């Protein structure tokens, strides 16, 4: 069965870049969301076993999504994908329950390494 993954970013191009960077041969069912509110709806619909989450977004930002997930009992592997490369940003999202942090522009090798480390993909 394919893994349901959710790609959250306000930029269509950023989502495209990320999807292109996913390991070839990983059997996935991809859902996309353009902001935090859409992301939470997709998560509640069970579309997000793995979530790739941008931080700066209109409506509800990535921090807001993480906070909500944490408050409701997190049940998703969240990988934050952000242009914000301050060490403190990395620390904060980890404290909010994110599994890993990937900086933009995304490096496919780094994504694969993370997925392997947590035994998510083959």
């Amino acid at each position, binding site marked *: 069965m394919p893994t349901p993954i959710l790609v959250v970013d306000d930029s269509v191009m950023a989502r495209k870049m990320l999807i292109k960077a996913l390991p070839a041969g990983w059997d996935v069912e991809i859902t996309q969301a353009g902001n935090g509110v859409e992301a939470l709806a997709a998560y509640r619909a069970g579309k997000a076993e793995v979530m790739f989450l941008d931080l700066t977004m209109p409506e509800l930002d990535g921090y807001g999504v993480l906070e909500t997930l944490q408050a409701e009992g997190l049940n998703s592997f969240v990988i934050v994908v952000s242009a914000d490369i*301050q060490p403190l940003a990395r620390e904060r999202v980890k404290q909010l329950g994110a599994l890993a942090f990937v900086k933009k522009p995304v490096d496919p090798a780094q994504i694969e390494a993370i997925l392997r480390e947590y035994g998510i993909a083959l």
Partner: protein
Amino acid sequence: MNDQLLLTPDQRDALQEVTNIAMGQAGAQLAQILEVFVQLSVPRINITESSSIATSILQLVGTPQSVTAVRQAFSGTLRGEAMVVYDQNGCRDLADLMGYEDDIDRDSERELLLDVGNVLVGACLNGIAELLGAKLSFSAPTIMAEDVEVGRLINPQQLTWNYALLVEVHFTLEVRDFTCHLMTLMPEESIVALKSALDAFMENL
């Protein structure tokens, strides 16, 4: 307006994302200089007519207030000018965070504003240029205006272009009410160059 100047939704989205990535690098450098956490904004992009530039800038800054601004020109694949706009608190906070007590003199304050402006402009525009495979060089930053009403930063009568692309990002600090805006302005011929660079970038994805 000539339709060739309008960005397609895809180009706009790509420019916003590229700017976002570049801004992340600029923000990280600012954070390193000031040793505080810097909050990034969602980049705002619009095409502005020269006669309404003052209104556009005022809208981006938000409230009519007195500001100090640094300007810096860039040239190469893309040509234009970048402005870094600091409000009154911004100037004082910057000096404060850099460890100056109340004793900062006028020249040191100007040097500080120029240096920080140069770092933000350089990081942000080099970031964009690198992603788009463009080459840029920069002129020395200069103080554009001190303690001037936002709406009067640019005198529309002195402008030689009709339309320009205006890209705005702003950096805020959690600990203080510091905000500074980085605005990049590119005239018509650069918009065309930027559009084809964005198209090439998207094609290579």
